[in-house]
């Protein structure tokens, strides 16, 4: 059956050999309001994400997609359970994960090039870099690397000196990806990174992210509410559902499935029978909507 084929695990023997890059054990997250009311967003989540996987987290608004990302990032601690990234527990935000949010991803007071150079420069020369003897040579070298990174993202050399407010949303996200990638993180976390973009920019960025993933194979965790985007990008799909008291402490992970990779471009792939069938299945699963007549 086409659907079963689409859900096949990709490169299963190789995947088995990969190490666990992100591990969540019994993770729950409950928020308490000022009135003392509690609201569980994530419940009993157990996940093992292997190195090099492209995991897409899908689900309706308020189901805990972004919370899951924030927990992996270390921005918030879980209420219960433990999280490990690259074999070490997550306690605070650090450079193990690269991060591309939906907006405000660039520092507005720096040009595209300065934004990309900022991370490596700060890492190597934390304070008053101009006092270090090797700084100027390093800066020159870094400038070349950052420019190449921007060109790789599909920007022109002339865009390097533009400030974020002079760039379109798509350009800003390209710079944000370059800014994260130049740090060579083992994990890339993208939180609805393309949600605010127009369809054509979105497709070109999806293809760019896939190319980068194929080349460098970072472990990707991509949060979206767009089913087609999720199916096009991911090698693994995690569907979250909104937690309710009826679940009685059970997990709100509705589905965790491996997807078959295809090298077809987005516009061709989305019209294949398998893709349409799978999209309909996942939409029904995550939003309770059936697209089939």
């Amino acid at each position: 059956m086409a659907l079963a084929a689409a859900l096949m695990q990709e490169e299963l023997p190789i995947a088995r050999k990969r190490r666990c890059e992100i591990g969540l054990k019994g993770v729950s997250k409950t928020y308490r309001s000022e009135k003392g009311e509690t609201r569980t967003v994530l419940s009993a989540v157990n996940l093992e994400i292997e190195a090099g996987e492209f995991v897409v987290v899908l689900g309706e608004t308020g189901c805990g997609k972004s919370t899951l990302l924030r927990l992996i990032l270390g921005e918030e601690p879980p209420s219960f359970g433990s999280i490990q990234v690259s074999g070490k527990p997550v306690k605070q935000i650090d450079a193990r994960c690269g991060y591309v949010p939906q907006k405000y991803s660039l520092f507005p007071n720096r040009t595209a090039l300065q934004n990309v150079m900022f991370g490596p420069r700060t890492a190597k020369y934390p304070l008053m870099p101009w006092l270090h003897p090797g700084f100027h040579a390093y800066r020159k070298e870094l400038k070349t690397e950052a420019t190449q990174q921007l060109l790789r993202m599909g920007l022109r050399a002339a865009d390097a000196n533009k400030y974020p407010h002079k760039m379109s949303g798509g350009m800003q996200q390209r710079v944000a990806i370059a800014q994260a990638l130049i740090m060579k993180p083992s994990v890339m976390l993208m939180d609805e990174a393309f949600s605010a973009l127009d369809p054509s920019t979105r497709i070109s960025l999806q293809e760019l992210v896939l190319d980068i993933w194929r080349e460098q194979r970072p472990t990707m965790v991509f949060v979206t509410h767009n089913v087609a985007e999720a199916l096009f990008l991911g090698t693994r799909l995690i569907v979250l559902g909104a937690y309710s008291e009826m679940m009685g402490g059970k997990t709100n992970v509705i589905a965790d499935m491996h997807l078959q990779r295809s090298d077809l471009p987005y516009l061709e792939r989305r019209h294949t029978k398998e893709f349409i069938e799978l999209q309909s299945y996942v939409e029904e699963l995550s939003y309770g909507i059936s697209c089939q007549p």
Partner: protein
Amino acid sequence: MATSVLDPRNLVDIQARPKRSATQILSWVLFLASIALYAHFSSVRHRENSEDRIVPSAKQLVQGIQSSVFHPAEEDDDLDPGATRWQQIRHSMIWKDTVASGSRFFIAMALLVPAILLGLHMGIFPYFGAFFLRYVLFFDKIVALSLLPILFIVFGIDEWSKIMLMVIGVAPTLILDTCQITRAVPREQIVKAFTLKCSNLDVAYRVVFPQILPNVINSVRLSLKPLALFLFAGEMIASTDGLAYRIAIMRRHMGMDIIIPYLLWVALLLFGLDTLLRFLNRRLHPWL
């Protein structure tokens, strides 16, 4: 399409689009009206009493300006008759008072820099915020002028009591304002910075501070008038020089021909400083 300034309906039309020339003309109307009104009252009073000093005539004002700009203060010695124009200005009453008030003003502004840094720390470091916020909020509600007797006791009646009055009067508001501006920096920026191997101090001084600086400068611009207000209060109560001291002295002599030019000079100085800060803000932050 541009609309006419002469059509009265346009005054209450939100969608009106005044021409550039109309905007320019309108912006000067109140100045001209004030001058005309002043000239009218002055001439009325001078018709009744040609020596009137309450609303000085243009001639009296010019004489007052000349005496402020080219003549020394009453308490100072006269210059040699052969002194150049520049030497006369350097030895003049207005120069002496401007330097005295200006130095107090700028020392107070320099002392407000730590207040800005405290506001930054309160906004970004949660423990700093928890430690200082309630105290600064409370301190902000104390009427600074009521502290003047205490300041006179602690710092004496010399320079420091006046400078500290300005600092204490403006610092809490500036701290709270900077704290609010800092907290308005999107959380995503801070998270991103940590993923780029920034330390806590890097985030504070290389990511957040450069971003909030334009708004902090705007906040300082809005504090110029309160600063001048506290300076004037201090100088009027206990001083031997300064712009406000001179105005207070001249009030006793009904010297409106000096007071009015002094008031305009103070307004011009503050306006110039405000314009300079706005210009610097634009030049230093091309990303705005």
